[in-house]
């Protein structure tokens, strides 16, 4: 064999070896699965209203302002700073410069304007974003990085609305390119993660955006091992959520049922993240127009007849505290003086019912009402472990001498119809919100969720003032007084503050939630 030949053979073998060698190691994508619950009917933040959509899109969009996850204060987001006019009707936002959308489009005042145009257009059929703007009139573009929002009347919760993902700022180019229904599959924001794909019913994928440098200050530097990709899937059946974590089918999961959460406390491979959701506690609203709950003495007696700490322990396994007010403890302007009102005492409850003339003449263990027994109808849907809660209430009240009729309906649609008939004494309904203005919907005479059917001018005036007054001290005084009124008149039976029990496998680090309770901030989440 001559030399030249052997050289060729050596080269050839080397070539073969190099072809067979494994490719240069590429760093594997750090991908995690985040388990959502029910799939919402849509994922467009400007159109749809669910909390689930916010869990995903909080990572895709920035908002003009943010709420600081520790201090709860409003801090700079896409707006560097802002000014509110003396008449409280003009909000001027000074926008950050050098921000680009994931599609390369520049962020500026025109982009904010295009988003507001879309949200307020009638064709958009916005289910939430448009209402969160309150008495919005129009916007004025002052210069490329300054925009004014003009209101018809003062609206104190406006900054709170601009801190929520429903007013997240989307790329005007993408908004123009896709029709209303299609945009949810091609979302483009400025946030820490890019929207990759959404397959309805199956999954939603987001991937880290490389040049994200304009995040709110509290995000800090990007940690080592930060996740690159998050796949959201829908785990609609509650009992399977724990199994999914145990088998690492999912890495993070929301709304773990309390019994599963209790089991997790003994499992060192899974960590719990209980997050209190501000707004109204889980509660029943009393129908103040229907016998016998039209009598305030009866309503107070029913609260005192309810063993709420038993419900918190048995149904919620101690993961959420007993509620005392119409706002839960971590809501803005919560009134802590109401803690302990109407403590559980069956004797006091019985005596109160006797004081307004109820007797048990036929000695069957129930108070009499007309021909039959004293009956109370509870209307509720199967969420939030209401069926279990209602059964415990039925038990407690039976021993006081009240017969409870449980009326369970399939969902919110059916609940609304049940309310419309007026044939209920108590109905279970509440809603989340950091700002206490949520109370207006529930207790204004014309409020859309005024299920206690309260008509009180004094309360209407106070609720209206609460949303229009500017000074925090005045607002606090208003809402403290409103909460006092609601409890004094026993308009609700508060059960427990809502706590969303999230869980994650032990390899997950840096998981935090924003003050609205539902929404994780996945920017700094790590997978080790």
């Amino acid at each position, binding site marked *: 064999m001559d030399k030249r030949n052997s050289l060729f053979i050596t080269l050839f073998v080397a070539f073969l070896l190099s072809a067979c060698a494994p490719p240069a190691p590429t760093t594997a994508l750090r991908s995690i699965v985040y388990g959502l619950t029910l799939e919402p009917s*849509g994922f467009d933040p400007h159109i749809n209203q669910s909390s689930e959509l916010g869990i995903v899109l909080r990572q895709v969009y920035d908002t003009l302002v943010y709420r600081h996850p520790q201090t709860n204060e409003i801090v700079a987001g896409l707006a560097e700073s802002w000014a509110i006019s003396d008449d409280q009707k003009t909000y001027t936002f000074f926008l950050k410069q050098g921000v680009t959308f994931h599609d390369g489009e520049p962020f500026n005042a025109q982009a904010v304007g295009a988003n507001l145009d879309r949200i307020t257009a009638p064709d958009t059929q916005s289910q939430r974003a448009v209402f969160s703007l309150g008495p919005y009139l129009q916007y004025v573009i002052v210069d490329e990085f300054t925009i004014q929002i003009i209101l018809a009347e003062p609206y104190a919760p406006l900054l709170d609305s601009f801190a929520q993902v429903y007013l997240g700022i989307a790329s005007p180019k993408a908004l123009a390119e896709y029709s209303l229904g299609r945009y949810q599959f091609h979302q483009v924001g400025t946030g820490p993660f890019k929207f990759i794909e959404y397959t309805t019913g199956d999954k939603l994928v987001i991937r880290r955006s490389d040049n994200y440098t304009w995040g709110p200050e509290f995000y800090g530097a990007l940690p080592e091992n930060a996740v690159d990709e998050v796949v959201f899937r829908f785990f609609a059946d509650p009992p399977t959520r724990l199994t999914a974590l145990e088998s690492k089918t999912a890495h993070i999961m929301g709304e773990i049922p309390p019994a599963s959460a209790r089991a997790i406390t003994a499992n060192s491979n899974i960590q719990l993240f209980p997050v209190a959701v501000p707004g109204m506690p889980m509660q029943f609203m009393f129908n103040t127009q229907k016998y016998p709950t039209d009598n305030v003495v009866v309503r107070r007696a029913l609260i005192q007849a309810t063993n709420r700490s038993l419900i918190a322990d048995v149904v919620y396994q101690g993961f959420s505290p007993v509620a005392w007010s119409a706002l839960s403890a971590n809501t803005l302007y919560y009134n802590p003086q109401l803690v302990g009102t109407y403590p559980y005492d069956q004797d006091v409850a019985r005596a109160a019912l006797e004081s307004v003339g109820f007797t048990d003449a036929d000695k069957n263990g129930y108070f009499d009402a007309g021909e039959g027994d004293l009956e109370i109808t509870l209307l509720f849907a199967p969420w939030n472990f209401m069926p279990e809660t209602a059964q415990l209430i039925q038990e407690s009240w039976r021993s006081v001498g009240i017969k409870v009729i449980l009326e369970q309906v399939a969902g*919110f649609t059916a609940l609304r119809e049940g309310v419309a008939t007026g044939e209920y004494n108590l109905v279970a309904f509440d809603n989340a919100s950091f700002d206490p203005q949520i109370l207006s919907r529930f207790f204004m005479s014309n409020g859309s969720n005024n299920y206690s059917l309260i008509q009180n001018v004094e309360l209407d005036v106070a609720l209206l003032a609460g949303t229009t007054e500017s000074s925090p001290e005045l607002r606090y005084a208003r809402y403290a007084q409103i909460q006092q009124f609601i409890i004094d008149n026993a308009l609700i039976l508060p059960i427990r503050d809502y706590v969303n029990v999230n869980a994650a496998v032990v390899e997950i680090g840096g998981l935090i939630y924003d003050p609205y309770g539902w929404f994780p901030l996945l920017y700094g989440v790590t997978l080790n």
Partner: protein
Amino acid sequence: MQRLLFALLTVWLALTASFFLLRLIPGDALSAQLDLGGASRAEIAQARADMGLDDPPIAQYIRYMSGVVRGDFGYSLIRLFPVSDLIAQRFAPTALLALFAMSLAVIWGVGTGILATLNGFWGIMGRGMMTLSLATPLYWTGTLAIIAFSAYLPYSGVDEWQAWILPILVLAFHSMGGIARVAFANIQAVKSLSFVIVARSKGLHPRTIMRRHILRVALLPVLPIISTQFGFLLGGAVITETLFVRVGIGRLLLDSVIAQDYPVVQGIVALSAMIVAFLSLITDYCAYLADPRLRWMDNNTP
């Protein structure tokens, strides 16, 4: 031809019934979403009127049916999407799941049915499995399967082929009992017929008798069962898809029923009715091909 008309009638009846039954339940998806989002009463009423939900039901029905005839199943009340798109996006995973599960269920069911006719240990096993399949609800076997196997097999989503194993097994197990029962009962009945006794007295091997004489006759009634079982399978998809976190028509149906998104529910009802009607046409035709007696009757009726 007559059968085709009958199938069309079935679909029309299913559509009409679902249209009016859904409207007997008060409430709609649109109002609920707006209410949760913070709309005022006036705004909700306006939105309802804009969507034509306040028109008399009969007017809505005529509008809907005239659309259906043109192949337009309307829009979802809350998803801003044509119903046909919503269904099309989710059809393939459900159809494939049902197809695989059905094929497995037929083999499994017939096998179990034959096994159940035996004496001794295997007979007991066969009858036990058949009873278990008939007696256990789908959500129970499904949950059990997830608890038992989730550590070894992925079970959620439709991307990995391994994730299909558990749902197919669970759904097939659920459907096989009905098929096994029909096969079992028919084999038992045919076994005592005179031609089997003749075959046996001629000294044929029992396995040959089973294969060549009994099964051919006894398995014919299984064919029509397949189309009805397929209907149950679509119902089972609601539970399977929820349990196994899968995309599909079943999940869409469940969500839409709870939300009272009428047009979507109607669209799925129409589709299911069409599938079942179509399948019963096919299986009837297969039975006709497979059974010489049916053909003979057809050719010799006056």
